[in-house]
């Protein structure tokens, strides 16, 4: 076997491993829960944040700026225009979008009409955050990423209502493996770039960044006086954060370190959620990590069901 053939075979083995769909179930349920929390957490301010008239009225400007980049990115303006033609005002259309997104998230949660629900949720969530770009932050991007992979991945998974009630056939196990690799690779890049950006800041090495993160409004849930009791730990926490993130793409794949690293990263996100009130951010990162690396690292991977189909026979050893 030539070197090129060997490299090709190794690449295909890496990209198309045989996988069960447990990771996909975690991703589907986790993202659906995240969407439901998102919808209900900003329900009362939905119109204030997203209307073009009344409230903050930032939608028009956000959509104009978005159009400078691309006119093809979904936005609430499309739905509002459609609604206007049907005689619905903006307020009514925004309410319908909220309701449709909530329903899509609920269907995704139970796994009924998985694919349609995933595409609908992705479209409506994307339109919402693009029109509300001024009030969007990192967590929204992570939800878009998760929904993007979810709608492309081989749904339904075996724990979904679709699989149990509507008797969908089992999915291609190599394709399940491919999409899990995509999610895993993406997480590695997220942490690596997040880590090296912190590496170059002095504050993360001497603990000052940890102190500032915890006293900075609106993340200042813990009184500074209480934090002072723990100040000796700040440098260690800062350095641990930098190392956890930067080394993630290297150590999460090693059998000997994967478990420790995954638990470390999950602990970091739980701590961020609890200490800084960033519940949505913590939830989506925990979901992404559990889906990407949980099965097989934190618990034994369930056996691939025998009735799974496979097309990628070239990837098999």
């Amino acid at each position: 076997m030539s070197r090129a053939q060997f490299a090709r075979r190794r690449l295909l083995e890496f990209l198309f491993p045989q996988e069960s769909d447990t990771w996909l179930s975690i991703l589907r349920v986790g993202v659906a829960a995240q969407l439901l929390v998102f919808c209900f957490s900003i329900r009362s301010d939905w119109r204030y944040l997203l209307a073009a008239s009344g409230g903050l009225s930032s939608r028009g400007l956000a959509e104009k700026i978005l159009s400078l980049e691309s006119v093809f990115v979904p936005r609430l303006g499309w739905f509002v225009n459609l609604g206007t033609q049907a005689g619905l005002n903006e307020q009514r259309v925004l309410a319908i979008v909220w309701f449709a997104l909530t329903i899509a998230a609920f269907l995704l949660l139970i796994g009924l009409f998985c694919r349609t629900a995933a595409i609908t949720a992705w479209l409506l969530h994307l339109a919402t955050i693009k029109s509300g770009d001024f009030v969007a932050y990192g967590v929204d991007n992570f939800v878009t990423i998760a929904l993007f992979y979810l709608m492309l991945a081989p749904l339904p998974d075996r724990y979904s209502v679709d699989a149990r009630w509507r008797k969908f056939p089992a999915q291609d196990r190599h394709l399940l493996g491919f999409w899990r690799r995509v999610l895993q690779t993406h997480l590695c890049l997220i942490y690596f770039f997040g880590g090296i950006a912190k590496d170059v800041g002095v504050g993360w090495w001497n603990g000052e960044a940890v102190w500032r993160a915890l006293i900075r409004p609106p993340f200042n849930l813990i009184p500074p006086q209480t934090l002072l009791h723990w100040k000796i730990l700040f440098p260690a926490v800062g350095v641990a954060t930098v190392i956890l993130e930067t080394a993630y793409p290297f150590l999460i794949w090693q059998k000997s370190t994967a478990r420790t690293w995954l638990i470390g990263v999950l602990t970091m996100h739980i701590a961020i959620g609890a200490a800084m009130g960033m519940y949505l951010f913590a939830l989506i990162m925990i979901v992404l990590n559990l889906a990407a690396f949980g099965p097989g690292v934190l618990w034994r991977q369930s056996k691939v069901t025998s009735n799974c189909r496979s097309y990628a026979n070239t990837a098999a050893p």
Partner: protein
Amino acid sequence: MSRQKFYVAGYFIHFFLIATVATREFFWVLSQSRTIFSSSLNQTWRKAEEASSVALLQDPHTPSGLRQATATYLHLAGIESGYGFFAPNITGQCKLVFELHYPDGRTESAVPAVSSDASGLRVATLLDKIGWSKYDALREPIIKMFTQAAWREHRDATMIRAVLGMVVLPTIDEYENGIGSSNEFLYSYEYKFEPAAPKP
């Protein structure tokens, strides 16, 4: 092209885009912030950032169709921005305060009001974006939007001064020596309103 080759090609293109976007943002961070590198390198980082934009087909010389197609994909996949959260340093938080002036000479203070912590975090994010933005053309209309929203809650006010400031955070040593957060003035805008008509 077989289905498998299609997936492999898609994988590499997708991750090339993610890595390039993240690299571009990293270079931007290096060129703008106080880092462990000398500020004499800032020009180099700026050039590297521009090179990343060229690789992403996002520079002005790229044909519009190609630029839009790439930008569309980046947005659809949620990969249009990098991952340098809370990095390299943690800045102070921007804060917006309204000074409401009434016809009878009264003045009141108010801040943008939302109903939940989740929405509050989003408004705080927006204030940071406009506070740190160098573009007044972007900042001014957004402050105006906030001010109009505040006026709808206080329709008797005839003039609202919107003051954007920054909360300067103390270091650990400063805090232990009794120095707390302080406010630093950034921008101020004044808007006049017609008094609301009396209710029938």
